[in-house]
């Protein structure tokens, strides 16, 4: 609080930020405004963040890592890069959205959904799909956009969702993907590309995080529509963690504490990032998914991460290379 004794550290916090540029800027600004503690950030994708934290561990430049998928945090933890800090505010966050050991805590949720171009679909006499099964409709041939699970976290989430949906049966999951294969235009490299494809009308529907679709529609691509599969969908958790050996440990803790408050989690939505806050008390804006309206599968982040290499290899061999009939 203003007027308190100055913290024993540098009095600022340096953040490795894994979310969108605007999200990071708004969040840090809000923190400084709230606490008076200076904050600076560098935007890094999760792999870059792990690399940078890892190779700079002798003299850490970051205090906090904020945003970006949880599997990155798990990896960083395996390298021993994160400090164990159980924030008092973390108690309010549901257990499935945080690390059991308390190394990282979830701050938002990205929920997988279908992003449809209503114009394209209407021309084919279709409506936006509401189940994984509808996605297999023959009329959607070459009209589904999805990224490659090996290169895109989004697509891997979609793949693991199939596994989860089939009760852990990998063979069944791959069978589904192979059935989907003829409908896929191409497995693009980046997770955002399918959203762009659907916006430009290259495909009729794509499998993306719902907040990406919403953000794109916000841009003015008004013919986009988000739907969710009723069989259940997967999600990604965005985390926050304290970095081991941080130079500003006190301010960093205050930052983590603040980031887990409802007010902090609402900031993203004001700048076009419509991920779902993990704090139950955080307000959801109009665009943001109401979690209760969506069926979520039982998504085991740890297991998903552990089997990623194996699964993507099998996907490559059994699905990706198959000819399209």
């Amino acid at each position: 609080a203003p007027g308190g004794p100055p913290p024993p550290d540098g009095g600022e916090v340096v953040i490795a930020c894994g979310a969108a540029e605007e999200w990071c800027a708004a969040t840090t600004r809000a923190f400084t405004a709230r606490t008076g503690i200076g904050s600076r950030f560098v935007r890094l994708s999760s792999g870059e963040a792990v690399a940078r934290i890892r190779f700079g561990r002798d003299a850490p430049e970051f205090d906090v890592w904020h945003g970006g998928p949880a599997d990155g945090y798990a990896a960083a933890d395996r390298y021993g890069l994160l400090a164990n800090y159980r924030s008092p505010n973390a108690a309010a966050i549901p257990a499935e959205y945080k690390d059991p050991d308390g190394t990282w805590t979830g701050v938002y949720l990205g929920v997988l959904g279908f992003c449809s171009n209503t114009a394209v679909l209407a021309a084919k006499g279709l409506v936006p799909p509401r189940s994984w099964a509808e996605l297999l409709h023959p009329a959607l041939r070459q009209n589904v956009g999805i990224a490659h699970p090996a290169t895109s976290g989004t697509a891997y989430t979609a793949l693991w969702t199939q596994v989860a949906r089939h009760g852990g049966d990998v063979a069944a999951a791959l069978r589904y993907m192979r059935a989907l294969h003829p409908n896929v235009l191409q497995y693009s490299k980046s997770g955002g590309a399918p959203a762009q494809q659907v916006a430009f009308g290259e495909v009729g529907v794509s499998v993306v995080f719902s907040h990406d679709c919403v953000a794109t529609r916000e841009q003015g691509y008004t013919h986009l529509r988000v739907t969710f599969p009723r069989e259940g969908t997967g999600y990604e958790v965005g985390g926050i963690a304290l970095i081991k050996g941080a130079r500003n440990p006190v301010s960093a803790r205050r930052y983590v504490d603040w980031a887990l408050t409802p007010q902090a989690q609402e900031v993203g939505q004001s700048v076009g990032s419509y991920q779902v806050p993990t704090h139950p008390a955080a307000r959801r804006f109009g665009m943001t998914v109401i979690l209760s309206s969506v069926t979520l599968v039982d998504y085991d982040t740890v297991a998903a991460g552990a089997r990623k290499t194996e699964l993507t290899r099998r996907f490559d061999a059994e699905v990706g290379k198959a000819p399209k009939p």
Partner: protein
Amino acid sequence: MSREGSDRRIRRPRAGVWPAAIACAALVLAGTVHPLGAVLGTALSADALRRYAQFFTSATDLTILRNTLVLGVLVGLCGTAIGFLFAFVQARLDVPGKRVLHLIALVPVVSPPFAVATAAVVLFGRNGLVTDRLLGIDYDIYGLDGLVFVQSLSLFPVAYLGLLGMLRAMDPSLEEAATTLGASRARVFRTVLLPLLAPGLAGPFLLLFVEAVADLANPLVVSDDYDVLASQAYRAVTGHYDMTSAAVYSVILLAPSIGVFAVQRYWLGRRTRTTVTGRPSGSVRLISGWGRWPVFALAVFIALIIVVLYGTVVTGGLTRLFGVDYTPTFAHLAEVLFGTGREAVLDTTLLAVLATPIAGFFGLLIAWVAVRRMPRLGGWLDLAGTLGVAVPGTVLGIGYLLAYHAPWYIGDAQVFPSLVGGGAVAGGAAIIVLAYVVRSVPAALRTGTAALSQLHPNLEEAAADLGSGPLRAFRTVTLPLVRPAMFTGLGYAFARCMTSVSTIVLLVTPGTEIITSRLLGAATNNRHGVALAYCTVLTCIVLAGFGVIRLLVGRDAVLHRVTGGRQERR
């Protein structure tokens, strides 16, 4: 490598050359060798050996290796061919509108990865304006063809500028001699012009090969199912947090690059191709027969594609909603120039301006040391310099982290400060400039090597004989004669600095804003208008930079008379 001493081209190193050689060596050691060594160290661990075994037994991985090689070779060939086509039209054809063509050929030097690829999708995609609506064909550019298309287009200007300089400097009496011996234009082209330009063709080929193979951004957007090693390495870092694999991929990626380099040096080292002599004669006769029209048409066709692509980019930046609502607006541009983008634009430009002259200077200097002074040592410098682009940017960035993040101590005394991070020297800017330099040196190096091998050593000898030290001879005689190479080096370096992203991302500090990462951010969020506005601004800045460089470097010296039709001022 060249036969030392067997050749009167090559003189023993003299005292004055050593400082230059040492400076070059310091740069490549610090900028390339040390960081790469740091990464590749992990590629030699026991853990890594298992990965090699996996790699060479996995059909998928071998396919990826083959894909990579095919891509590199195709892009090398296509890019060099397009560059040569434009240079030939410019220097040898009697056709109108050459200045316009020249300007158009410069534009693709600025190719923020996202821009060209996105524009290409919009135009030539499945629902593309050209492919679908105009021609009504069922074609999409995703895959190898699209990749080659996008990469060739964005890399060919280096080849173009270098070859143009060489063509213009070449002693026309050689071509004249061939024609008086009865050789047709086509035969002169094949038996005299091409072999003499071999260094000019091989240099860009190597550069394009290396860049194509290590390029990451374009494969991410248009490669579709076409996997290449660079994206594998990238994925290992970002998807699997697996540095060892990334390093392994990089080692495998380096092998073909070094191979191509060695072949080129061996092949070119065997014959001299000096065509700029101190006894000029003859005149260039522009081709004015009907045969020029098909060639010209091809160049114009490619120019049109460039115009359309970049026109799309500009349009996208100046209209409300890309692909949907083409109402003009300056909102995106305003955001970039006066809003949140302003700082990124200023920071990036400043850093690029700092790095450009260093890169251009060192590129030429290494070329000079390698071609003229110390073929052995120079050969290694040349290789090390070229390797600066031979690995994916991410991997090099990690190398920088490993090499320069921690200060160096001997005992307790800090002998070298930390270079990476906000608390580092110059707020971390120094290392970014170094990275820029290292990534841009090869262009100047390759075109410089080509241009220098064209100069008769007598010219520098005459300067030395008249009292010039090696560096002065370099400055007053060599440099003005390889001015086009210098322009290419500087221009390309500037463009490269302004647009490079993957290396830098690992080095940026909270204090520095990088335009390309802003751009990619906007693109990822599907804010295409803003992203394309960034591209437009970037293009303008780079082209303005070209203008400034042209002013500083000066016009190319006219070394020969040109006859047969309209002559363009240079």
